[in-house]
């Protein structure tokens, strides 16, 4: 653990990305616990205040909307929804896909064929089409959006971990384990899983940004998170009408989405190298992210 942290301290881009992500997750988490009332509080007479007026109280720093609600507070509360949906969906998809992928790759046979065909079918449709059908037939709630995102991402994890498993399970050290009498489960858990993890973790880091983009697009179109809940995409949509007079209502939530997505993609780039035992020396030599 300390070794990983030391590696992170060396890579400036990855460090800034990780710090940003931790800060935003913590801030949004705290806001969801303590600031919900504050964020919904309207204040007549101080509607549509422009941002960056630091003489005013903290709540007005990023401006206010037409009802005098604080953009900063709404941003943090909405971020909690956006981030938790993305993180939950990424983790569930990764766990399901990896387990299925390792099983398919290790045991092969009919399970393998079925899983791969299903993955092909899901991957061959544009994700938004799938989303539109799904949302039409079920209610667009947070849970359903997570389910939808998981369904659309599982095939990817399935493919990656299956391909890795196919290759790894033919290696000598797996044979050695088997000779020593290790059970199938143990081989999968102790020999194969650690080798598959780097790729999966890289994809999870990247997916958190990507899934957030999908969720925000759905919410923006009115088929994602529904009011009175908020998310960053929904905030952009509701600020749209007032764009000519109050640009900050659309600007800040979009910026939050973009920054989070950029950070998650930079971090994923670093994880790819740091989590791979065969490539970690690149970072330890101190080349940082330049050496790619």
């Amino acid at each position: 653990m300390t070794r990983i942290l030391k590696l992170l301290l060396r890579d400036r881009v990855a460090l800034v990305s990780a710090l940003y992500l931790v800060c935003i997750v913590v801030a949004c988490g705290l806001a969801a616990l303590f600031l919900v009332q504050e964020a919904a509080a309207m204040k007549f007479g101080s509607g549509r205040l422009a941002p960056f007026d630091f003489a005013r109280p903290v709540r007005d720093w990023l401006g206010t909307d037409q009802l005098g609600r604080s953009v900063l507070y709404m941003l943090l509360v909405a971020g909690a929804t956006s981030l938790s949906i993305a993180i939950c969906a990424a983790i569930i998809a990764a766990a399901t896909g990896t387990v299925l992928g390792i099983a398919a790759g290790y045991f092969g046979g009919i399970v393998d064929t079925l899983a791969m065909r299903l993955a092909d079918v899901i991957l061959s449709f544009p994700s938004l089409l799938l989303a539109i059908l799904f949302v039409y037939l079920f209610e667009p709630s947070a849970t359903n959006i997570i389910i939808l995102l998981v369904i659309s991402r599982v095939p990817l994890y399935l493919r990656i971990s299956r391909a890795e498993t196919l290759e790894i399970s033919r290696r000598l050290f797996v044979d050695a384990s088997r000779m020593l009498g290790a059970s199938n489960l143990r081989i999968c858990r102790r020999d194969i899983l650690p080798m598959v993890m780097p790729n999966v973790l890289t994809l999870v880091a990247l997916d958190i940004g990507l899934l957030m983009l999908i969720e925000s697009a759905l919410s923006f179109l009115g088929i994602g998170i529904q009011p009175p809940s908020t998310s960053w995409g929904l905030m952009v949509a509701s600020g749209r009408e007032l764009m000519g007079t109050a640009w900050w209502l659309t600007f800040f939530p979009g910026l939050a989405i973009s920054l989070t997505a950029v950070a998650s993609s930079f971090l994923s780039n670093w994880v790819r190298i740091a989590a791979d035992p065969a490539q970690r020396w690149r970072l330890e030599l101190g080349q940082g992210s330049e050496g790619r």
Partner: protein
Amino acid sequence: MLRMLRRRILESVLSLVFLLVVVFILSRLTGDPSSLYLPETASDAVREEFARAKGFNLPIWQQFLTYMGDLSRFDFGESLRQQRPALSVVLEAYPATLRLVMWTIIAAVTTGVLLGCLASLRPGSLIDRLAVGLTVTAASIPDFWLALMGILVFAITLGWLPTSGMSTPAHWILPVVVLMLRPAGSIAQVVRGSMISILGAPFIRAARGRGLPVRRLVFLHALRNAAIPVITLVGVQTASILNGAVVVETIFAFPGIGRLMISAILDRDFAVVQAAVVVIALAIFTLNIIIDLIYGWVDPRVRT
């Protein structure tokens, strides 16, 4: 080649049938299917009559047979809002989307290939970093937000471009640019990668040794070899361009299939949603098969 083509077509048809079966099961699972087709205010008597007329009271396997039979004749039912066949509503909106996607692909390939070539000539230079930066940011900025910011800057503040519609070429600039950035970034990366490896290949060095000018070398000999990964990428990107088209059409009030789908969802017009999904899925499968054919044409190794 023919065998591969046959397999691809079969696979696509299977996927499509699978999609339709899932839609059928889901639409029957969610309770009363007539509520999918009728407005929420419909009375019980109307619902019952509709259910009888559509055969929703028949056994489920019989319903499935009529459903598949209707679909095989491209009969998706009536659009609730417009009181005419859903398919004709969808086909009317189709050309606008097709043109939008086509211009986007042309713009993305031109920009991506140019940027990728320039970046590959001098790895590590300013233009190379610009290309990398474009890829990362374009992949991370939500397209709906980019479109709104584009409107804010170029339409509202500067007044250079119109905000919505599709009547003049100026109307197309913002939508195409917004849609183009993401695919252009990834195309530039792929072109850059394969150009760097090809420019180091013996046959290029031989040509350079014979005194061929660099520009001719890059754009004539090396680029032809870099074309294959780019074609693959265009195929993959088209699906994501279609995703983006839904958003962009909604924002710029483009009368395309994406905007139609979103408004159909919000109006609960199931027949139109279903028709649109099937038409788009068909288009994507056709495109994938065309791309396979192009492979065979560009790369002689695939033909065997």
